């Protein structure tokens, strides 16, 4: 490997632990998670529900503080220290499963929310957003209120709001989870295309194995609670990728490698659930 362009880790997470009091009991949610994301990489985190995926993302975004462990975010345009939650807040683009569009704002005014908070004059922010409405499939709907939009459009509007902040690290928490299967495939293809044309580092949380493999350079598989990395899978499929890839034999091989540990985990959750009389 030549080292004239050293790969810069954008996010480095070392043995992060986190526990919460759930139902009156102290429960460990993350049990020493290590994770590295390099500049420009697309990384997915996959795991059974309740494995602490969202907690991990909240910690990276600075919404939550880990009990122990280190998080480092490297970013050229910040003087704030990334070791503390408050130092990380506002340094990553963060998008959740819910679009969280403000119902009293038009689509356009929703997308400029972050710019506005930063003090960019509305008119200027709107002009900036208008340049992207076509690429985000929002053209002609800029002045509609969110309720008039389809789920996919609302999600793209939320995504544009995130992207306009210009953060080079973007965290996506099951952004397509609430969409129907067809729209989801469309959105995956769209995101794939968009990401390949932009220089962004993306961390995606998903429970959809196809989605993770199709989009990512690397997939981290977490165990059920307490969450811990159990498998790191490099997805060395050629880019640019298209949805057809899902049916190719190479894809099938990778999928099998991911499905096997995932399935055994789900089984262990189910048997644990049966023995304690809980539903998984």
């Amino acid at each position, binding site marked *: 490997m030549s080292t004239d362009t050293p790969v810069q880790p954008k996010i480095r997470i070392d043995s992060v632990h986190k526990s919460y009091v759930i139902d009156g009991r102290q429960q460990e949610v993350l049990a020493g998670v290590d994770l590295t994301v390099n500049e420009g990489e697309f990384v997915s985190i996959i795991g059974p529900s309740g494995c602490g995926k969202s907690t991990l993302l*909240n910690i990276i*975004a*600075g*919404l939550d503080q880990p009990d122990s462990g280190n998080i480092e975010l490297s970013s050229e345009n910040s003087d704030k220290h990334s070791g503390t939650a408050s130092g990380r*807040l*506002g340094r*990553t*683009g*963060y998008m*959740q499963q*819910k679009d*969280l569009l*403000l*119902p*009293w704002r038009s689509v356009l005014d929703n997308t400029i*929310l*972050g710019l*506005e*908070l*930063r003090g960019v004059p509305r008119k200027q922010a709107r002009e900036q957003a208008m340049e992207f409405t076509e690429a985000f499939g929002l053209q002609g709907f800029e002045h509609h*209120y969110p*309720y*008039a939009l389809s789920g996919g459009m609302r999600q793209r509007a939320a995504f544009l*709001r995130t992207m306009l*902040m210009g953060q080079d690290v973007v965290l996506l928490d099951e952004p397509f989870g609430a969409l129907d299967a067809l729209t989801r495939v469309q959105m995956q293809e769209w995101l794939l295309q968009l990401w390949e044309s932009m220089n962004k580092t993306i961390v995606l949380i998903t429970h959809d194995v196809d989605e993770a493999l199709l989009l990512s350079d690397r997939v981290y598989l977490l165990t059920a609670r307490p969450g811990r990395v159990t498998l790191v899978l490099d997805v060395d499929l050629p880019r640019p990728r298209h949805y057809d890839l899902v049916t190719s034999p190479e894809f099938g091989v990778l999928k099998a490698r991911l499905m096997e540990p995932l399935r055994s985990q789900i089984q262990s959750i189910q048997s644990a659930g049966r023995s304690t009389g809980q539903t998984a």
Partner: protein
Amino acid sequence: MRFLNKITGLLTWLLPVSILFGVVAAWELWVRLADVPQWQLPAPSEIAKELGSSSDLLWDHTLVTLKEIVVGFLAALFAGLVLAGGIAYSRVLERSVYPIVIASQTVPIIAIAPLLLIWVGYGLTPKIIIVALICFYPIAVNTVDGLKATDPDMVNMLRTLGASRWQVFTKLQIPTALPFMFSGIKIGVSVSVIAAVIGEWVGASEGLGYLITYSQPLFLTARVFAAIFVLSVMGISLFMLAVIAEHLMMPWHFNEKRSNSMRQL
């Protein structure tokens, strides 16, 4: 579909109007057939006549009462919103002031009204204060609830976009509170008319409430009813004004509701 909508729309108006009309007609008939004396219960036609013949008198007193209501209500709105904002923004204010606001409602305003006469005199001021005291509470309490009704996920979203506490307040909490605030305003407006009349009953020389207390011992019952009629027209108009303001300020709120109910169909 559209035709059906029109019919149901017409029915929603037609039903209450025809019920009201029926009651008035029965009233008129009863008074005429049973020969009820005028000073006891005037027929609707007599009240209508009275509305015409003493319209100047009624108008003068209406203006006085309306002034008390409008000034008192606006004072309550201002005080209610400022205090609600403070209570929602500062935990210290919430702990110290909010319990007092709630406790203040247990004090019977009617009992305070005569005291106000002693303190601030006989003019418009005590009536304005009574209207303000009564309207203030629903506006403040509803707005506090609204300011606290924010979706925590929305707050987190704003924080990841780099929002300060104040920005979360102005960009999220205040718009979220608007529908709640308007509920408070609508309640406040409805009770404001009653508040003004109570204020005038305690001691006044003008206003529709005064006109009622003045006319009653003289057995000018038709005039009492005419004043009551004007008061309820005033109350309904003020309520409708509040509804119009609500629609103008929150078009998204009503469109969203409509599109949701359409989806359910």
